[in-house]
């Protein structure tokens, strides 16, 4: 095996170790936004954060989740996305 082959094999190993699972990334992101929306709603109810901030979080969540809808995703992921969007719309 030449040095070049060794480097290529090493890079492939690193890349495979860091394999990207897009579906999981999206599910994590949706779960993150759902929790954020719930946390901000709770803090808003306790008057710990102003309405102007809560609105920005909702807008950002809608923006971020809507971007995910432009990509092809599994049905379960899309349904979860719709639930997060519905939650955001309710808090608007």
């Amino acid at each position, binding site marked *: 095996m030449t040095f070049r082959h060794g480097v290529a094999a090493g890079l492939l190993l*690193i*890349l495979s*170790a*860091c*394999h*990207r*699972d*897009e579906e*999981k*990334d999206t599910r*994590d*992101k949706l*779960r*993150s*936004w759902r*929790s*954020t929306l*719930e*946390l*901000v709603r709770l*803090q808003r109810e*306790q*008057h*710990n*954060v*102003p309405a*102007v*901030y809560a*609105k*920005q*979080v909702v807008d*950002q969540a809608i923006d*971020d989740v809507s971007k995910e809808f432009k990509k092809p995703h599994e049905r379960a992921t899309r349904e979860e996305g719709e639930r997060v969007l519905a939650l955001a719309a309710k808090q608007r």
Partner: protein
Amino acid sequence: MKKKDLMNLTLGIITSIGGFLEVGSMATAATAGALFGYKLLWAIFFSTLGLIFLIEMSGRFAAVSKRALADAVRERFGFVFTIVPRLLEVLVNLLVLAAEIGGVCLAIKLVTGWPIVALAIPIALLLWLVIWFGTLSWIENSTAILGLMTIAFVVAAWKLHPDPHELLRGFVPSRPSEGAAKYWFLAVSIAGSTISPYMFHFYSSGAVEEKWDEESLTSNRLTAIGGMGFGCLMSIGVLIVSARVFLPLHIQVDSYEQLAVVLSPVLGRWGFPLFAGSLGVCCFGAAAELALSTGYLIAQTFGWNWGEDRRPLEEARFSATYSIVIVLAAVIMTTGLDPLKLTLFSMALTAVILPAVIVPFLLLVNDEHYVGKHVSGWIGNTVVVIVVLVASVIALVAIPLELAGGS
């Protein structure tokens, strides 16, 4: 130590603590805590250790040789050798400055709802006015003393009662069970945000402006250890609060809007204003230091006159340089770039360029021609070389993986 010296030392340490946190350290520590709990505490610790040595060396060098770093590098190695690393440094400074201006805009946006794109130019103008009309010590002290509100993160971390055993485990480097690319990318971003070359250029230029001499060496050492050491506690505080508040809820910090609620569950009504205030003040202070540091860097590289404490028109090229840099950074922010992504990326890039900046610096602080008997010891040299090399090697691997979307 005289009473006046003690006062100066205390002020130096306080300003270092208050000026430690900025948009980079806040974003990287918070993201690290939210995604990996305490597992990246070691990155903050080792980077701070490297920074303490570098700050001490740059202050010592300026006090003994009466020269600022970039000035001496040009003099010792020549303009041709200097120009490439300096260009890289200026480019990275520009990105970081844009991120800092973005941080100030974001703090205002959180409170008012006004868009970042509309705020970037007015904030840049305010920054320019402060630098144009202010003096070095006024800028340094006022922003840093206001920046002490970042102690809120340490108070919040204390109130959250983190498990000490788990905390201690975080100081030992470990491999993550998943998300390796993100983990290493965050580790180098933390290193880049902590060991920012602009900090020691600013520090050494400030030491020359304030006419430090060999009598300043003790206070320089204490400021570096005390200021940076306690400053590091602020970053650790951010990481702990983020790990305790966000990690159990699976909130990953994808935007600053998510981050802004982090103190509220712990500090109640004080949480949100303290977060927005900390972000705004720290970013403004860091932006002022960055703009000045870039001005110093360019002026010293070309051998121009420089000095924040002189009248701007007397140092026209120096003043023009920082003015242009501020305008360019503001323009970058008006393009609508995601401030969080810009911050994390520019911090990781900082880690890549570290060897190009640090190696000539290390040679100088070990050159008796400049520092006489005050050359650096082997412990400092070794720590700096290891931290810088490890950070830049990891950065070279982690940045392409992160850009390729590794998880």
